């Protein structure tokens, strides 16, 4: 059985859009501190991946990315939350896909000259050294959650290759402006780097105190 590693990417959307740069405005977290992950709470996350598998050397580690915006509604809200703004309009793609914590549409009424930053982020792509070297195998899945715009990213990792590998997350943020009475919805896609470190450590779980490795 593969273990699931979660990587939360928390984005200060307004600051990142204004600067057109995610560096210093995105914070990374994972649940791999026990395995030696470093840089939680910063933009310099190195996720530790234990390379020695307990079941088979062919086994892989699975990683899930969970991008969030500071101030957005929790992604775990039941789908009925989104009914309030009309799920039909969401499915038809005729409404902005962002709601605030009160399920009100973000930027529904924009004053002249006003800009709103949507509390909403999606992953557009995952590229970089780790992908090119075929260590990280990212994949995009469909998702029924309106909050994630139907996208969900996960990856499996070839744990036979030890070392530190970098990858680039491409995150899409949204904002709306009103100039001269014309409302425009904008999207901006920005990159941010992070790393995985495939170690020689052995996986443990709640059922064995010592790492259990199958005999060769």
């Amino acid at each position: 059985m593969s273990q699931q590693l979660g990587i939360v990417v928390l984005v200060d959307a307004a600051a990142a859009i204004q600067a057109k740069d995610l560096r210093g405005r995105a914070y990374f977290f994972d649940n791999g501190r026990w395995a030696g992950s470093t840089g939680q709470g910063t933009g310099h996350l190195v996720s530790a991946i234990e390379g020695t598998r307990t079941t088979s050397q062919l086994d892989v580690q699975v990683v899930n990315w969970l991008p969030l915006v500071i101030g957005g509604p929790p992604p775990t809200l039941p789908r009925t939350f989104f009914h309030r703004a009309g799920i039909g309009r969401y499915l038809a793609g005729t409404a902005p896909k962002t709601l605030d914590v009160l399920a009100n549409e973000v930027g529904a009424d924009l004053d002249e000259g006003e800009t709103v930053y949507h509390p909403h982020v999606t992953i557009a792509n995952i590229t970089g050294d780790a992908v090119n070297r075929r260590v990280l195998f990212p994949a995009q899945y469909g998702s029924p959650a309106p909050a994630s715009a139907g996208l969900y990213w996960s990856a499996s990792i070839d744990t036979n290759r030890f070392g530190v590998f970098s990858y680039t997350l491409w995150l899409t943020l949204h904002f709306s402006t009103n100039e001269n009475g014309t409302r425009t919805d904008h999207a901006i896609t920005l990159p941010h780097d992070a790393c995985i470190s495939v170690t020689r450590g052995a996986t443990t779980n709640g059922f064995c105190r010592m790492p259990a490795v199958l005999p060769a």
Partner: protein
Amino acid sequence: MHAINIVTIVDVIAALSKGTLRNNIFMIDNGAGSQGKGTALLQTACCPGQVINWSVHPVDVQTPVLIRAIELLHPASQTGENSPGFSPRAVFGGEPEWHYWRGMVPWGMPAGLYQYRLTLQMAKGAVSTLYADTAALNVCEPASASTADRASEEARS
């Protein structure tokens, strides 16, 4: 004055295994001038009259976590002349039913650093509700509130 959002990321499995939130929570806000972003020692810069929203996310997809309480550690220190007191509470958030935590920094609150206790519930049972006393609100001078507000409004828009 725009609201500040404080997000707490919790490694629920590590917190329950070790029985402590120490090293297992990370706090971020989207305010300008806050310190300790990304750590449990977040000091949120805020002004009297400003609304603060708290939310909490688990770091993985399978564990629940919710805010149980937010309390100032030294409530006596916040007694301004006309201060109604600072009392964040759970607010009804929308359909079908969910609550989020919000509080307004009272207008009469003297400037200073106010540590608060964040209590999180991760499961049912004796050791599933844990708290951290590390985070604080850094309340600015009421006189400079309008200036800070203008500056942050410019930063937002």
